[in-house]
């Protein structure tokens, strides 16, 4: 049962990723990326990482993709009409490079397949919000507070970059 669920989510994730890359319309690409994020959250649930699954949907599929859609709306971009209309050396090289990367990773995994970890018995215990918060507020407290500074700096920087008139000093 869980294997069929995994296969469904994997096909959904990879199919939506492919559709995102080959789609001409930018808004459709963004919506396919949302499907990809949601199916990835499902895969996290299969791995018993409930906390990260919820965070993935809230932060990625919620916040970041809404930001992308707003920017697409602001930019008023038209479709790329000349995607895959004729053979280009650039596309061929891109596919060769992607196939090389995936082949290299599969080769590396196949080389160490007897060293990969088996499924852990306490897998269900570590992914809960309780376990994550327990570590996050004790062992990783300083990085957690640094994240707040990072996000503040990012927001201020984004406002400075994107504001309409920048005062000349």
């Amino acid at each position, binding site marked *: 049962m869980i294997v069929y669920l995994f296969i469904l989510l994997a096909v959904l994730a990879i199919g939506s990723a492919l559709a995102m890359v080959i789609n001409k319309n930018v808004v459709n690409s963004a919506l396919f990326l949302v499907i990809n994020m949601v199916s990835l959250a499902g895969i996290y649930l299969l791995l018993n990482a409930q906390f990260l699954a919820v965070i993935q949907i809230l932060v990625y599929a919620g916040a970041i993709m809404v930001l992308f859609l707003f920017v697409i709306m602001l930019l008023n*971009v038209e479709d790329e009409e000349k995607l895959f209309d004729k053979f280009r050396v650039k596309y061929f090289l891109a596919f060769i490079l992607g196939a090389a990367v995936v082949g290299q990773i599969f080769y590396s995994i196949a080389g160490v397949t007897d060293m990969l*970890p088996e499924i852990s018995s306490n897998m269900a215990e*570590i992914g809960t919000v309780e376990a*994550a918060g327990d570590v996050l507020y004790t062992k990783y407290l300083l990085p957690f507070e640094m994240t707040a500074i990072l996000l503040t700096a990012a927001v201020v920087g984004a406002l400075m*970059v994107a504001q309409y008139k920048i005062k000349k000093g």
Partner: protein
Amino acid sequence: MLEIDWFLGISAIMFSIGIIGVLIRRNAVVIFMCVELMLNAVNLTLVSFSSFHGNIDGQIFVFFALAVAAAEAVVGLAIIIAIFRNNLTVDVTEINLLRW
């Protein structure tokens, strides 16, 4: 039962799709979305190793990676908007201000 190889396989395929997307697309926003896809693929690797080892540190790392990805998306989209104001395009083949 589940094997970790499958999760690593999906992660590798998604990462390669992201690479191909960055290389063939010309719209800066779509290139940015492909970068997000590659980040997600790496996050999946971290989560699967964390769960299969029974150690939560990898998942906490993914949490911080999510925060950094959010900051990166905000700043990157602001830069794209600034470029669009100056050039009226987000086609990366027509943005050649820094090209010699």
